[in-house]
């Protein structure tokens, strides 16, 4: 059986030294691409076939294609964002009333700052159900989400509605100049037991 591959491999590659195919039917073995790659320089290779047989045409093409695709994908991930910064200073601790939820930074940074008698914590304004922004109802002392009715108490624990877990807390600390500093890059989830970790609350007694 003769495997005949013209075009890419060139007729010379697979034909025996004699051009008379009939004569060599019994004696010659079928040439395969593998045997060519292993020993391409057996004297039967034409100059045109050499590059192709070594895959030297497809390799740079494939490489360039992959590089192009990679560059295009990286292009879609911007390096500069026109969003409010993830870390910000929220003012001095004495500006916050004890037992109150402060909504000054709800719209601008998506954070509620709550002061308890002995510490501060920062709640995320993202409902843990599907991502809407709940409202703080001071009369009932709960956060209620307008989208699907999830309810959270002042600590952020979910008590009603479809929310599956409590509101997340952001890292809170004191800056060098004594202001409260919130870092949204780090979040603490109660259901993972992270509300006892350092950074999830700021100890502060008046």
């Amino acid at each position, binding site marked *: 059986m003769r495997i005949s591959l013209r075009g890419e491999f060139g007729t010379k590659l697979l034909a025996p030294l004699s051009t008379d195919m009939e004569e060599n039917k019994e004696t010659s073995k079928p040439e395969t691409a593998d045997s060519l790659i292993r020993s391409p320089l057996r004297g039967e290779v034409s100059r045109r076939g050499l590059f192709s047989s070594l895959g030297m045409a497809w390799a740079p093409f494939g490489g360039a294609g992959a590089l192009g695709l990679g560059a295009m994908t990286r292009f*879609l*991930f*911007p390096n500069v*964002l*026109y*969003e409010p910064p993830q870390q910000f200073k929220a003012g001095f601790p004495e500006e916050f009333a004890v037992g109150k939820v402060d909504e000054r930074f709800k719209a601008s940074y998506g954070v509620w700052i709550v002061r308890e008698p002995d510490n501060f914590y920062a709640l995320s304004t993202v409902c843990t159900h*599907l*991502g809407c922004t709940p409202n703080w109802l001071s009369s009932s002392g709960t956060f209620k989400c307008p*989208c699907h009715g999830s309810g959270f108490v002042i600590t952020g624990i979910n008590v009603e509605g479809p929310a599956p877990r409590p509101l997340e807390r952001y890292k809170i600390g004191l800056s060098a100049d004594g202001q409260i500093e919130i870092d949204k890059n780090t979040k603490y989830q109660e259901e993972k037991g992270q509300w006892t970790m350092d950074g999830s609350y700021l100890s502060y007694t008046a």
Partner: protein
Amino acid sequence: MNKLFEKIRETQVWKSIFRHGYPDTPRNRTLAVLSNFFLHLHPVKVRRSGINLSYTWCMGGLTFFLFLIETITGLLLMFYYRPTAEYAYQDIFALRENVPLGLMREIHRWAAHLMVITVWLHMYRVFLTGSYKPPREFNWNVGVILLVLTLLLSFTGYLLPWDQLAVWAVTVGTNMARATPFLGHEGPGAALLSIGGLDLVHAGSDVRFGLLAGRFVGEGTLLRFYVLHCVGFPLIAATLMAIHFWRVRKDGGISGPL
């Protein structure tokens, strides 16, 4: 009057445009379809069963028709709509109040809803008539990708009015992306992709970030979805549609006996 038309048909201009004769002969009928760039995607002849509504429901054809309606109305809308947070909402309003025949936005929206319905009905019909069986499996798969593209077009277009419905719908929709395995920063496996404590997949670099061009739905998202909706997805859909129609013809034409 007829004499005048005959004279026109003998002019060089006419003959250069129309490469077939005018009299109603079988040859001219064939050439009228074959020698036309737009019509030659159509077969010259169809089986009688191909135009039987109770066989085909004509849903595929309706879907394509609605796609053309969407393209034209969409193009017209692009003359007035600006995809920025500052202008998007009021431009949509202006398209109804300030533009003559202020119906383009409504037609566009209605046709979009109808297209989703006809696409599903078409899929249902193809399933009921067994037109997915060999050798048509590949075309079925192309059709499924077209279905996904139709839904993606709907999703991206939904954001463009920039109203409350749009912003929160896209927020909820893209929040699902952050739970993707490996590619989403809250999905399984994301924690594994970190080099020496530095997370490779985080809120600022996962697939949700790439979709939104930000950490939340904002101006970057609006522009990105606008480009996808007006250029990206339509181009891919048009290409796949061409393959889809080509395949129908190659496999023996529409609605014949299997």
